[in-house]
């Protein structure tokens, strides 16, 4: 409850800043950037697994804010969702441009140029790599809800689809991610994944 109230207050501040930016306030622009650039950066990192990619997305999102802050309508969703929506569109455009769609990626993890090692922990790195190989509609739902901790309703606004679609994409995405994560687990690790796996998979 306290978290919801905090989030509501944060959204009010963001909405006010967007209105001030639309009215020409430079200070509001700098403040909104400081507040939200990390959220956008993390979303793009999680989607594309690249820091330089994420940096470009942040840059473009705030250019978009400069152009379109006046179009933000709080009745349609939170300011955070609006910013995430901008980030999502720009991320998808860039992914399309760079042909980094999941189904075009080589099967071998190491074969992907431009990917960076983001996390020291190998398991986390492997999960991130598996996430980057999910079909994009599952990946974005997972990133928004499971990693960015947006509610279903907010995620539905960002993804521009009904809440039911968000739920089903999440369910399918999680199952696919779990399967990919297991597939790529080194044999030594597979025994830790869970009892069902031990019964079903036999390492050579």
């Amino acid at each position, binding site marked *: 409850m306290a978290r919801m109230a905090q989030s509501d207050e944060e959204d009010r501040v963001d909405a006010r800043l967007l209105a001030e930016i639309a009215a020409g306030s*430079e200070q509001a622009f700098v403040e909104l*950037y400081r507040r939200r650039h990390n959220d956008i*950066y993390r979303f793009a990192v999680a989607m594309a697994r690249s820091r330089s990619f994420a940096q470009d997305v942040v840059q473009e999102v*705030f250019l978009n804010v*400069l152009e379109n802050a006046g179009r933000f309508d709080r009745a349609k969703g939170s300011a955070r969702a609006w910013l995430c929506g901008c980030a999502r569109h720009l991320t998808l455009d860039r992914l399309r441009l760079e042909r980094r769609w999941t189904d075009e990626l080589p099967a071998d993890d190491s074969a992907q140029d431009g990917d960076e090692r983001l996390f020291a922990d190998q398991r986390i790195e492997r999960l991130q790599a598996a996430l980057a190989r999910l079909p994009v509609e599952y990946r974005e739902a997972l990133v928004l809800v499971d990693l960015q901790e947006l509610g279903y309703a907010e995620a539905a606004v960002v993804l521009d689809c009904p809440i039911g679609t968000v739920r089903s994409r999440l369910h399918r995405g999680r199952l696919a991610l779990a399967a990919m994560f297991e597939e790529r687990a080194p044999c030594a690790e597979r025994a830790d994944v869970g009892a069902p796996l031990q019964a079903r998979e036999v390492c050579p």
Partner: protein
Amino acid sequence: MTDSQHDKLKLQGLQVELAQLRAALRAVEAPAPNEAALRAQFREAVRRKAIEEAMVSRGGGSWRLPLAAAATVVLAIGVAIGALVLRVERPVPEPLAATSPEAASVAVGAFQPLSSAPRLSPSSSYSVVRVRIPLSAFAVVPGTVQDGTIEADLLVGEDGLARGIRFDEADAALVSVAAQSRQ
């Protein structure tokens, strides 16, 4: 174990992994913002937007440009007529039918340079633009010249400024009358 139970277990395991990824991702930070660059970006965007809005509003009022052009042409013609009047010696006003042939010969055929315009140069290129001007534009006192319009050729330089003017023979006579009515 059924498939759904298996999926449930897999998802539980995944939630643990996702929580770790979430925590690790929270520690990922974007490069610190360069405030000076941000402010410069903002100012540039505001400047660009202002230019775009100005262009849109100019495009929206599409009648303004032709109107301004027409006003410029009328002004140029006025200046031309003024120059013509000063050059042509016409001691006694004459009726239209008896228009002095000398006066007409000044304006007909050759371009008459405009006094306010830069000198014509043989090395420059010019365009000829045909314009239609109401006769009333030449009269200081309304009603002193007849209604109607005349056609004239404007000699326009590369900079868009009119350098000379030429009338048809019949129109030159009318202009002479109109010009005399100003004196």
